[in-house]
């Protein structure tokens, strides 16, 4: 029921079975994707409605999910179903001329086939319209409840086949919502599918929640809660809801970040003088290692992809800038950001020599990418109060928090800044998105 892999000191052994209380999977305001800009170079593609070969109504619209995923990537432009001159579901039925005349470059066809009680097979094929060749063909089994996820998996496979880049449609996002008037707000930690569907509340509190961080296996979230009138770090198992309090010393306990091997948390604590420093905590042994010792604010640690370095924000130079230090605390911190007077909250690209930061761009707080190889800073977003960048596991896209009017909403931007989208919600402030790792099973 609870985590057996993590053994804690007695005073911190908070193994609590709180599943019933916290895993309220009641209806939550869904996020809705709005394509904002950057789709003009998208590849025209036809995702033909999949044929349902069973009796009665189809149990799920697989092709609608696949088309929405491909559209959301910004790299594809699925044509509307009503423009299709035919709706083939087998290779034999395809008339390539009908698609060439529409300027469609790729076509996806498929069938949803019953395979026993509440069991199905999604069979699909992808064709290059101009060469008339099959690019991909696959049969994906699924239970009834798994059809949405299986559909995202189909979209992942198509995306990877056509772009050479791993798809992230099967991933999830964690985020914080805040509703209510100042002084009487409800804070929620929510996990949803990457397209905003299936949102469920993990934690609900009258006190602030912040800084959700995914474990590398995608099964746990670390986060900060003020429920005991002080910032404390918790780790919660997504399936069981069991959680542990892993850092709750007097003063600040905050900014958790998992090491790539999942064994350690980088975190921030304040000393008796209230000064913030970066530490690592080995979860199995509770061994705490202090990495910074300055009288500056040192916070927001992030691990390099190889786990050897920890990047962090420090105002030791007089304004917040990004530094890196060896994860074992040896050596001196090296400054990585040099453009502008405010660079904070680094996140490391999983695939490139690039970090994303919150950057003050002429008075506006925006997400910027710093190319560590060439040393230049590129501003990726155009908001006023953008913050909390988080990379998709394929490194192609960042999700971040921005403002729409007076409300906090989430948005995504491609790592090159060209494709931007907004995820609106119906009510409350949405903030601090964290993109999950790739699902491995």
């Amino acid at each position, binding site marked *: 029921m609870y985590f057996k892999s993590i053994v804690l000191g007695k*005073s*911190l052994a*908070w193994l*609590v079975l*709180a599943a019933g*209380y916290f895993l309220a999977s009641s209806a939550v305001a869904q996020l809705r994707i709005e394509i904002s800009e950057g789709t003009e170079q998208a590849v025209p593609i036809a995702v033909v409605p999949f044929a349902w070969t069973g009796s009665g109504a189809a149990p799920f619209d697989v092709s609608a999910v696949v088309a929405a995923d491909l559209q959301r990537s910004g790299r594809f432009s699925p044509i509307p179903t009503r423009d299709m001159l035919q709706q083939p579901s087998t290779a034999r039925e395809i008339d390539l001329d009908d698609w060439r005349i529409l300027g469609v470059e790729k076509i996806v066809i498929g069938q949803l086939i019953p395979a026993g009680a509440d069991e199905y097979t999604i069979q699909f094929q992808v064709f290059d319209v101009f060469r008339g060749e099959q690019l991909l063909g696959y049969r994906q089994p699924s239970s009834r409840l798994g059809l949405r996820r299986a559909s995202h998996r189909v979209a992942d496979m198509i995306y990877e086949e056509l772009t050479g880049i791993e798809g992230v449609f099967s991933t999830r996002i964690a985020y914080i919502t805040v509703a209510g*008037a*100042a*002084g*009487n*707000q409800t804070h929620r930690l929510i996990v949803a599918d990457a397209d905003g569907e299936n949102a469920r509340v993990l934690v*609900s*509190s*009258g*006190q*602030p929640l*912040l*800084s959700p961080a995914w474990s590398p296996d995608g099964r746990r979230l670390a986060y900060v809660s*003020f*429920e*005991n*009138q*002080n*910032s404390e770090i918790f780790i919660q198992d997504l399936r069981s809801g069991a959680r542990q*309090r892993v850092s*709750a010393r*007097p*003063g*600040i306990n*905050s*900014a958790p970040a998992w090491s790539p091997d999942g064994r350690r948390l980088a975190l*921030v604590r*304040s*000393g*008796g*003088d*209230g*000064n*913030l420093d970066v530490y690592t905590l080995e979860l199995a042994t509770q061994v705490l290692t202090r990495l910074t010792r300055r*009288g*500056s*604010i040192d*916070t*927001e640690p992030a691990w390099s992809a190889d786990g050897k370095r920890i990047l962090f*924000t420090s*105002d030791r130079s*007089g304004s*917040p800038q990004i530094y890196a230090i060896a994860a074992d605390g040896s050596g001196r911190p090296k400054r990585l950001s040099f453009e502008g007077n*405010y660079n*904070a*909250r680094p996140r490391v690209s999983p695939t490139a020599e690039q970090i994303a930061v*919150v950057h*003050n761009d002429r008075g506006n*707080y925006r997400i910027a990418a710093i190319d560590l190889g060439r040393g230049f800073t590129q501003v990726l977003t155009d908001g006023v*109060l953008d*913050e*909390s960048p988080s990379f998709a596991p394929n490194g192609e896209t960042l999700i971040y928090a921005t*403002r729409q009017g*007076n409300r906090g909403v989430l948005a995504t931007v491609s790592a090159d800044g060209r494709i931007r989208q907004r995820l609106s919600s119906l009510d409350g402030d949405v903030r*601090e998105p964290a993109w999950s790792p790739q699902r491995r099973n």
Partner: protein
Amino acid sequence: MKRIESVAIALVLVVLAGCGGQSGTAQQDDPDLFGEYGGGEQGGADTTGASDDEFREGSAFGDGAPMGGPGAAADNRIIYFEFDQSDVDSDYADVLRAHGSYLAANAGARLRLEGHADERGSREYNLGLGERRAQAVKQVLLLQGASAGQLSTVSYGEERPASIGSDESTWGLNRRVELVYQR
């Protein structure tokens, strides 16, 4: 110049941390952890800009309500700060002297200093800024006669705004330290 001040404050803090010991606010062993969910804040932590306005109407300066201690007007239990600054403005000298005197005269009194930041910039960094502000107020109170054991600090960063909005006046109301006497 600001750096030099900060370093000086930090040095004072290191010395004081050594003799002050731990404050009594840790609740690590509270078994009723989950009972806290959805519960309200204790004391006056939910002070908002609205109640601030109410007090402005009625409290004559130096007359009636005391300037320091738990009976002080709401105006005199909030210290505001400049953008990205943690220096306590000299305008607050009288108010903090009054609180310091109250604490010195009432050894059993406990004061929680709640530091806050405005919404600009990153959240975790703002948590650091709020803590730095709470510590700056703590230092002044220690110089005014309070003892370290009477004072605790917490930072909420930008997570508990007193006022919601994205303009200079709102930001100014949110960059603050609230003095919350514990019952």
